[in-house]
């Protein structure tokens, strides 16, 4: 009875109002701390100084905008929390403040292919730190509109926020339909890679996810859910057009926005076991190359468009919580039907053990090519730093780390990973002409949601 005595004593809910208020204050303080740290540290990354930009310019309009919008939306969210039921409007957010250090000066580690590289041998805030805000409006129980913006250090070398998602969501009995700008769900759980609080590791395994260059598309998805005695089965069909420019580094950028995707996902959840199988077909109608260095030397090769063909992904994923153990695994089989790299298999296996607020974990991942690249697009040998047309990623990684849930919406994580590559050309590294093909990456991140 003691367990519930507090409830019975507080029939006007005052006690819990106080707890609620404390929690709100805690997350409010945390967000201010985040915004402050954001302006003090990330606003002047070492990278920009090295690139010769004036210090004043590094505090870009984009960053200021993101802080102002972030602050306004956060203030709005705090005042709306108590009224979200009546007003049918909700503001939520997620963020990460992270530092990463790669011990190899000859290889630059990147979290996501369209982020600018950060010099090896340096501590950086810019790869992992980000802030996302989501606004949703439910005019009726069946209909919902959602818009999400994310601020991260991006290919334009700023933290200016970008609309990542904007869609309408309609739910009936067993059907869910979404239309608009949607998160690309190409790989196992690839639609929530920005939400660090939602996964166990400091960073999703790059061997598995770095190939996932498209993060959102404009289109439609339809899900049919079946409820059986043994579990819930979901079948989702989706299709649309990508909108990404794929920036490699200062020397080369690729525009792959002329890409169409269609796919089918089947998933089953039985208690704490989730299994997923998926097929995605990418129709890449053209790739536009931009090589600034050639503008003076040979303009026709500085900017050109080439036809490409198509590629297919076969994806399998598993997540299983058994007692205190937390297992997760993914396999991607990539088949190219033209000029889009090499056939490859990427996979990962993660094992964690939940003990009170701690979850120590181990993570193994690899990416292995299955054909030698034929490069009819550019039949000349390229330096590794430019060879993104037919990248051969052949590497594996071993990571160990721990997640500590410091509060119910804040997690602190530390991770060490050893990356071994068989080729100096690898998808998650740039500027690696003199690379000795291995590196150790140290990460500490603070993830939160509100």
């Amino acid at each position: 009875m003691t367990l519930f005595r507090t409830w019975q004593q507080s029939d006007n809910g005052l006690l819990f109002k106080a707890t609620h208020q404390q929690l709100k204050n805690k997350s409010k303080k945390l967000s201010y701390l985040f915004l402050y740290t954001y302006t003090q540290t990330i606003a002047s990354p070492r990278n920009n100084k090295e690139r010769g930009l004036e210090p004043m310019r590094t505090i870009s309009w984009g960053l200021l905008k993101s802080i102002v919008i972030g602050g306004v939306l956060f203030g709005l969210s705090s005042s709306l929390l108590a009224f979200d039921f009546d007003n049918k409007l909700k503001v939520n957010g997620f963020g990460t403040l992270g530092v990463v250090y790669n011990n190899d000066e000859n290889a630059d580690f990147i979290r996501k292919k369209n982020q600018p590289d950060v010099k090896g041998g340096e501590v950086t805030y810019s790869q992992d730190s980000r802030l996302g805000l989501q606004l949703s409006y439910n005019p009726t129980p069946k209909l919902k509109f959602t818009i999400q913006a994310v601020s991260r250090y991006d290919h334009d070398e700023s933290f200016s926020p970008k609309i990542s998602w904007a869609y309408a969501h309609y739910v009936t009995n067993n059907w869910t339909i979404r239309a608009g700008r949607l998160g690309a769900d190409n790989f196992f759980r690839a639609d929530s890679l920005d939400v660090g609080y939602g996964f166990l590791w400091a960073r999703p395994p790059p061997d598995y996810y770095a190939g996932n260059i498209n993060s959102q598309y404009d289109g439609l998805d339809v899900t049919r859910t079946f409820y059986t005695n043994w579990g819930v089965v979901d079948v989702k069909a989706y299709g649309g057009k990508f909108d990404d420019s794929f920036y490699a580094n200062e020397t080369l950028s690729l525009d792959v926005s002329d890409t169409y995707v269609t796919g089918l996902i089947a998933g089953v959840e039985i208690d704490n076991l989730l299994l997923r199988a998926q097929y995605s077909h990418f129709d890449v109608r053209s790739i536009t190359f931009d090589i600034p260095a050639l503008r003076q030397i040979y303009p026709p090769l500085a900017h050109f468009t080439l036809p490409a063909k198509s590629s297919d992904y076969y994806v399998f994923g598993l997540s299983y919580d058994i007692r205190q153990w937390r297992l997760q695994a993914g396999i991607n089989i990539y088949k190219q039907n033209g000029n889009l790299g090499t056939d490859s298999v990427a996979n990962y296996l993660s094992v964690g053990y939940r003990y009170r607020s701690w979850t120590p974990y181990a993570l193994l991942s690899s990416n292995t090519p299955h054909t030698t690249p034929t490069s009819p697009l550019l039949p000349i040998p390229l330096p590794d730093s430019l060879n993104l047309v037919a990248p051969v990623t052949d590497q594996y990684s071993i990571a160990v780390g721990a997640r500590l849930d410091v509060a119910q919406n804040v997690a602190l994580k530390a991770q060490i990973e050893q990356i071994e590559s068989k080729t100096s050309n690898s998808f998650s590294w740039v500027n690696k002409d003199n690379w000795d093909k291995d590196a150790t990456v140290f990460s500490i991140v603070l993830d939160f949601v509100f």
Partner: protein
Amino acid sequence: MATGAFFHTKILGGLISALLSLVVNIQATLAEDLAVVVNPALDIDSLNKKDVVNIFMGRRHTLDQNTIAMPIDLDDDTQLRTAFYMSLTNRDLAEINSYWARLLFSGKSSPPLKVQSAEAVLKMVSEQKTAIGYLPISLVDQRIKVIYTLQVPEQ
């Protein structure tokens, strides 16, 4: 020596009685079962554990063929909420919040509406036909209908 033995016996006796009183206390603080409740006007009389898990974990949107469910949850950091999810899914609140972060920000589903007390759950379920909530079984009265009883293990 005799005095020492006497004191040892006394200490041992004290320890045993302390342990006994602890056991008695533990039995006195046995957790109360939780009731999953809906509005009496709703045409459902029972759900199984899977249905309850699916509704509160955002995998199931409907209560019956025509009713979109409105699950009602309690605020973070409460023993009642901890007991509910631990009994239902064997996960602590940080893990439940982490699960919801993934679903919410990938647009799959939204977490249940949160209220601040079991009394607020009772009020909302008695007023909203589509609401489904949970509360200590001793709070149940004629304004609401129990459709599932969750046994809370000893702490």
